[in-house]
């Protein structure tokens, strides 16, 4: 008994001391990364007024505020700001970025510059946008402008008092909805930043202490949500919105540099498209709590995270306005396998599942999808007429019309994940208005090993991560020669040197229906060498029933998985019902409708209570 007690005390001491060290590490390493980011953008980029110059060097708010804050090239920078205000874009991006630039750069601006900003927003009409991230930006912009100046009539015809009231009301609504039913634009490697930036501005500049507190708590909420899916810079698992160039190369996500700022554990990649939008957070006073930092970086033990998010509002053709998205993430230090249940959860850019490898190599992921498009999908979410909007969407998101796209929702796909195994099934009996009748799988050429095995499995290894992919039907395997075109003509780098976007992958394509795959992930820590992993996977048994569209699979871990399309899931004979809380893991827990997020790491528990906007933290004895 005594020995046990001593051991217990030792463990407590070890946990406590390591936690203290981690706290030091978080703060000091954050400061270093923050300074690196600010210095890089202030020093390395020269503003150019040449319209042919690369995007990042033409006048833009991010580079302007970086230079103003650093007091670098101030006359040129103010001229650039004048240029932007003389030709205002007049939308949600413009108003919040202008206000953020003015507020962060105030000390470097002439004393009367505030009058110019105020006059500008009295004249420049502002389009609100049509997504939740647009609205948060729009209302953050009006909130900051209206608290800064008491104006009887802004460009929208409303007074400061009216705008403040409306902005506060929307922000409160968004917080309540998100913490009750889950985020709508959930876990987007791109749009994550468009929530973070407005929240950072509200935290930094809101004069109302309660609004500041709300913003701080939502920043923690968003970063906890990000951190639980964070693996060495990668935003892993299922995403609501993911551009193809990011889906195939997670290192190119805008979220990556936010991960770098708050969590580290990855390379500094300042030239990734729109990475510069990290400037506001880098300038701001918000600091990620140590407990969230630990959760985002401690990969010593594998864990499962289950989450509930929310489908984008369905304006027609649906039974209800929104419905749950169920996410499942299996995280290890070497890889992460994550998924949502499939189906149309978001238009255009959904990313249902992938395995992401803990590697600094580009294209560190494998996934499959049914590239899908239909007027029905667009009509579910967009108010325009479904048939002509086809053409418009194809223009604004060129890849949407591409049969080769690497980002897509599909009503004909369902998944079932259990730990490090996923079964992915497709019923491709499409009606005449739907495209296309195929599934595609992405295998990067940056894999260290790639084996098309006579057993039917396709194996691969990248650094310390393994996968086995078992196609359920006959397929073609071809090297994509011009991946940039295949990504839909959306160059990801916009003139910033970086990865080549040619010859990046081998594409598996299968036209049969029903269809699908089984993916088994692993690592040396779990299964030994790559050869040993392959040998163990070969011994697993897969039974595919085409009539039932079902798969029975005994996993590499010995679990018996059964999945029948679309929604019958069993493990070891026991039914699995998708009815997750908002967060459910050893680190995060939040019940539906509770508005409370409990964050746990070691013996520390931090509770965000959005009912009364309080944060408490205590230690479990």
């Amino acid at each position, binding site marked *: 008994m005594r020995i046990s007690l001593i051991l217990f005390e030792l463990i407590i001491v070890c946990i406590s001391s390591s936690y203290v060290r981690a706290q030091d590490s978080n703060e000091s390493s954050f400061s270093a990364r923050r300074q690196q980011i600010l210095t890089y953008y202030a020093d390395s980029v020269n503003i150019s007024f040449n319209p042919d110059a690369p995007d990042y060097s033409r006048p833009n708010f991010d580079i302007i505020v970086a230079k103003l804050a650093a007091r670098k090239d101030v006359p040129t920078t103010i001229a650039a700001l004048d240029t932007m205000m003389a*030709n205002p*874009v*007049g*939308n949600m*991006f413009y108003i919040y970025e202008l206000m953020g630039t003015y507020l962060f750069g105030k000390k470097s601006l002439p004393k009367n510059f505030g009058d110019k900003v105020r006059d500008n927003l009295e004249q420049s*009409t*502002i*389009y*609100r*946008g*049509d997504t939740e991230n*647009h*609205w948060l930006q729009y*209302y953050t912009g009006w909130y900051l402008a209206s608290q800064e100046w008491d104006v009887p009539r802004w460009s*929208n*015809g*409303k007074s400061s008092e009216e705008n403040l009231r*409306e902005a506060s*009301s*929307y922000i409160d*609504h968004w917080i309540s909805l998100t913490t009750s039913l889950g985020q709508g634009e959930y876990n987007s490697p791109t749009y994550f930043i468009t929530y973070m930036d407005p929240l950072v501005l509200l935290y930094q500049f809101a004069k109302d202490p309660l609004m500041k507190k709300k913003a701080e708590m939502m920043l923690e909420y968003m970063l906890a949500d990000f951190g639980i899916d964070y693996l060495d810079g990668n935003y892993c698992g299922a995403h609501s919105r993911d551009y193809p160039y990011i889906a195939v190369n997670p290192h190119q996500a805008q979220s990556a540099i936010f991960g770098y700022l708050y969590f580290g554990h990855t390379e500094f990649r300042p030239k990734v498209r729109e990475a510069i939008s990290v400037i506001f957070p880098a300038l701001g006073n918000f600091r990620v709590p140590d407990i969230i930092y630990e959760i985002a970086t401690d990969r010593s033990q594998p864990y499962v995270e289950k989450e509930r998010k929310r489908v984008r509002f*369905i*304006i*027609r*053709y*649906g*039974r*209800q*306005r929104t419905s749950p998205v169920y996410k499942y993430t299996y995280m290890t230090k070497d890889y992460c396998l994550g998924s949502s249940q499939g189906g149309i959860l978001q238009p255009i850019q959904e990313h249902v599942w992938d395995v992401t490898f803990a590697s600094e190599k580009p294209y560190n992921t494998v996934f499959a999808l049914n590239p899908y498009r239909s007027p029905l999908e667009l009509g579910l979410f967009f*108010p*325009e*007429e*479904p*048939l*002509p909007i086809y*053409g*418009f969407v194809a*223009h*604004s998101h060129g890849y949407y019309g591409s049969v080769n796209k690497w980002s897509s929702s599909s009503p004909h796909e369902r998944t079932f994940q259990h730990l490090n195994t996923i079964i992915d099934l497709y019923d491709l009996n499409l009606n005449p208005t739907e495209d296309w009748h195929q599934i595609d799988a992405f295998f990067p050429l940056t894999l260290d090993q790639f084996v098309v095995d006579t057993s039917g499995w396709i194996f691969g290894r990248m650094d310390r991560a393994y996968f086995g992919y078992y196609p359920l039907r006959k397929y073609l395997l071809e090297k994509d020669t011009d991946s940039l075109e295949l990504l839909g003509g959306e160059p990801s780098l916009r003139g910033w040197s970086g990865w080549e976007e040619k010859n990046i992958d081998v594409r598996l394509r299968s036209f049969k229906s029903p269809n699908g795959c089984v993916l088994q992930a692993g690592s040396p820590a779990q299964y030994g060498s790559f050869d040993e992993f392959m040998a163990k996977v070969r011994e697993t048994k897969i039974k595919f029933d085409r009539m039932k569209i079902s798969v029975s699979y005994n996993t590499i871990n010995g679990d018996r998985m059964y999945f029948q399309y679309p929604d019958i899931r069993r493990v070891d004979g026991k039914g699995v019902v998708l009815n997750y809380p908002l967060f459910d893991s050893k680190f995060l827990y939040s019940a539906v409708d509770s508005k409370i997020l409990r964050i746990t790491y070691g013996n520390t528990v931090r509770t965000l209570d959005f009912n009364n906007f309080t944060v408490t933290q205590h230690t479990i004895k």
Partner: protein
Amino acid sequence: MLRKLGLIVLFVSTVAYAGQGRLYVVVHLYQTMVVGGHNPPAGIYYTTNGGEKWDHLGWSNIIAYSLTIDPGSYGKIMYLAAGNGVLKSTDAGESWRIMTDWHETEVSKVVIDPKNHDILYIATPYGVFKSTDAGWTWKKKNNGISPKQTGTTSSTFVGPILIDPSHPDKIMIGTENGIYLSTDAAASWKLYALEGKGVRDIARCESNPDLMVAGTENAGIFTSQDGGKKWKQVGNGVDTLAVYTVAFDPNDSKVIYAGGYNTGFMKSDDGGKTWKTFSSGISDLSLHGIAVDPGHPADIYIATIPGGVFKSTDGGKTWKYLFLNGAQVWSVMFH
């Protein structure tokens, strides 16, 4: 005299036209629009000379759907239905105010009660909203069409709103789930006709209010001879079309015009029994609005998406391009 009931204002507009002669079009967006970028001006354009010269009015950086002008205001009081909500001008478009807040969005139509101009109804993808104080405050009016009651979100996706000019409490709406009727000024709704059909537009013949025509998504054109209780689908190969706009000829109740996705300009001379298509001169065959010049009914204007505005001076047989190529012109109206 006939008119399209979907825009109550047109009756008075017709009277006002002789003095003002303005043709308004509303640009939803440009096909080349990039969210967040500098885009060509959308919103309201107007011409006073049959389309030779156009001017822009009001906000240019907006997603817009339709314009409504208060018939008793001599063109001063305007409502723009837009993504940002309802914008109102009381000085003929010189200045505007957003009258709604975040609860009301993607407003496609504003309709004014013909007897009390302070009463407004708006159509949105989230249902009907009503104001009784000229737009200062709004209340959602979805009793009977809410998804919980109907089992589908399509019932709150509202397009056309028609107020009975004699009985303003009697209101008909076209939804993605058919036509609903209220007899208590939008306090409650009941399914009235065309259940399950996406009803895009409804027009009523002014000289004979029992005659109505409706355009639907992928089910073509329906006509009614009893004020909307019973509808008959038009055959002759048009029964699978997506029809976004319908209108009666102001001088002849048997002449009906229609258009939709890739349809070209459609005309019926027999009350909707048979239809002919005229596309000569139209570069983009998808129509979203039709306006007949009340003073010269042979002059017809169409809004196309994204081909801009076209004009016919021979009752729709041949067409000439006027303006706004590349724009999704959502609606067109005279005032």
